[in-house]
């Protein structure tokens, strides 16, 4: 069964339903615009990724919209759908999107013969070209988004969608962006800094106080108590006696904080039976949830996150197609 085509503002709209269900890319020539007409976010995501993976310029540049009416079916955090498509439209209202649609159409017409994958030396060069084509026609910056499911917590969803492996997605996408930036094709603005596991670059890390001697993290923190009258200093349990605080040195009762006694600090006990070290300043230990590597904070991999924009030089290079990317 074929998906329905309707016409709005003399633009043909393909309502994607079966295509998403079966993950089959429809013929790009039967409609000018594709609109997702499905409720299952996972199937949609799979389908949108197929579009991005496509090597056909008519497909990977095809304007694809989501419908506001379906938004409630997509989980709150699935902002990735928005980033993998051209965003939402309401009640098939396309008027605001017409410039984009027409610009894209013209761009495709002009460049469809210059986008043969075999003309590009490496696959990465073709990926750069596809990325340029998309962001140029959409007139958008390459924005990092906070994404819990990505390796580091920050993702460039459209670029990372080229890859199936999380780690590969992180490394190659950053490499491509860095390279384009070094060549002057992209300019960048600082967004954030992230601390990543030094062995797998994961940003999903567990921070906890550890024992400086044995690195164990089963610690107990207790308050020190200073009894003014006899100058005894110990922890709370030294004084605990039948719900009262009784000084183990002079046997008098500690009644008022600040008058009879105070708490001049904290002390930690390592509960590892072989260690039992007492100390006041626990260092922080970092454990990577993904690869289980134990590391100290200063060993973490520090990565700056940028938002990229195509420069004039970038536009010139991108428009030259395969010839430009080669240089």
């Amino acid at each position, binding site marked *: 069964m074929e998906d329905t085509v309707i016409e709005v503002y003399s633009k043909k709209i393909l309502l994607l339903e079966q295509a998403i269900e079966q993950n089959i890319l429809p013929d790009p020539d039967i409609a000018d615009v594709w609109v997702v007409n499905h409720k299952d976010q996972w199937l949609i995501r799979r389908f949108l990724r197929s579009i991005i993976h496509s090597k056909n310029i008519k497909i990977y540049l095809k304007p694809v919209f989501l419908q506001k009416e379906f938004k409630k079916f997509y989980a709150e955090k699935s902002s990735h759908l928005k980033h993998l498509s051209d965003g939402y439209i309401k009640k098939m209202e396309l008027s605001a999107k017409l410039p984009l649609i027409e610009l894209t159409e013209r761009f495709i017409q002009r460049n469809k013969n210059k986008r043969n994958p075999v003309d590009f030396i490496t696959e990465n060069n073709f990926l750069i070209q596809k990325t340029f084509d998309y962001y140029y026609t959409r007139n958008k910056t390459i924005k990092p988004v906070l994404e819990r499911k990505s390796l580091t917590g920050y993702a460039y969803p459209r670029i990372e969608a080229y890859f199936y492996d999380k780690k590969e997605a992180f490394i190659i996408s950053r490499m491509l962006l860095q390279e384009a930036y070094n060549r002057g094709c992209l300019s960048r603005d600082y967004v954030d800094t992230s601390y990543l596991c030094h062995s797998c670059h994961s940003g999903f890390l567990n921070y906890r106080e550890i024992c*400086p001697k044995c690195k164990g993290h089963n610690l107990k923190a207790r308050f020190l108590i200073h009894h*003014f*009258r006899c*100058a005894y*200093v110990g922890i709370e349990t030294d004084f605990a006696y039948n719900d009262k605080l009784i000084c183990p040195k002079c046997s008098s009762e500690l009644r008022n904080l600040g008058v*009879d006694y105070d708490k*001049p600090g904290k002390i930690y006990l390592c509960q590892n039976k072989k260690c039992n070290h007492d100390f*006041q300043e626990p260092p922080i230990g970092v454990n990577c949830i993904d690869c289980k590597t134990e590391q100290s904070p200063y060993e973490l991999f520090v990565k700056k996150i940028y938002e990229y924009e195509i420069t004039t030089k970038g536009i010139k290079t991108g428009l030259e197609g395969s010839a430009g990317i080669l240089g």
Partner: protein
Amino acid sequence: MQEFWDKYFLIWHQLDLETIMRWGWFIFLFDIPRFVILEGITLFLSKIKRFETKDLWEDARRKLWKETPLVTVLVPGHNEGQHLYKLIASMQKQTYQNLELIVIDDGSIDNTSIIGRSFEKTGDIDLFLRAEERGGKASAANMGLRYCKGKYIVHLDADSSLDADAVEKILIPFYRYKNVGAVGGNIAVRNEDTSLTTTMQFLEYLSSISVSRVVLSHLGIYKMVSGAFGAFPKDVLERVGGWDIGPGLDGDITVKIRKINKNVIFEEEAVCNTHVPVTWKALTKQRLRWSRSLIRFRIRKHNDIWKPDKNFKISNFLSFFENVFFGLVLDFLWVFYMFQIIIMDPKFLLVWFPFKYSIYVVLALCGFLYVLWTNKNKKKIMKKILYVPLFPLYMGYYMRIVRTIAYIDEFLFYDSYKDTWNPEKTSRKGREYGA
């Protein structure tokens, strides 16, 4: 010049025996017997004993090394961060190395905690404890005691620097004698060339610590383990409950240890070099504090030492008596006579002062000879011989005046309970329960 000496000898002719004994009986009855005869004889005997028991000392040393117990070096201090580097260096060159260095930062308001923490990270300090609120020296030392693991505890001031064998030497008496509750180390002045003040203290420490404490220890009435350098078995410290609120907490803990029938020994060969106050003002402030603690602890807190009940011990009594008699009684007597002369016959001072001064210069030279005899570094000491004639003025007038002021002040006003050396919160409790 000739005239001066003529006048001087005339003085000697003006004085007959009766006048001399009338005004100066304590010189012949106490000062000469004690500081010349008793000290000389005892020093001689103790040296002989030490020589004769050489083998026993060597045995004790071997026992120490056979056991090699963990020893905690406990350094409580307030704003002492600047001294930590030197302290650590002095620890690292110790011949005895099974050490655990614990530094307690008593609410310092400078960068002590940053310095200390970084040394803790590098492992140069085994444990750096910090009280965010200043609690006084006693509480800082007690905090260290709560967390130390050593069998013996060596208590140090942060600005003291130890001779390389000092820790080993201060531990040996625990293996040489039985039932030792504390060992006091020898304190030497290391900034003796800075000012006249420090030079005089250099001479003072030599005679009143190096010599006098050997004598007191030999007689079994040594009662003052300096906070700057002393060693204690951990179980003894725990039995007496650690340190109590100062000032003078080091003397106080020694008394507490004596009271549980432990011996207190002075070890002259364990040498700690310390910085002493450079100006007269700073020295006066320090000595006022020290002297007040004589009243606070010897007369007030530990007044049971004086009572002949079932806990009475003659050695404890004598050690207090010596302290109070020579410190307090003779001082007041001296003041009393001074006033008497000034009121009755001020001109007599012109005769009496040169005479008394001459005798005390001779006594000081005698003491200086004892110092030279007992110390190894004779050259360093000889350099200061020209200052010996000033010593009677320093000890006899300056120190006496300072002490007397402190005693009167403490008797009447309980000023040690207000000393800013302790934070107000603990002083208040001290007044409430101690005074």
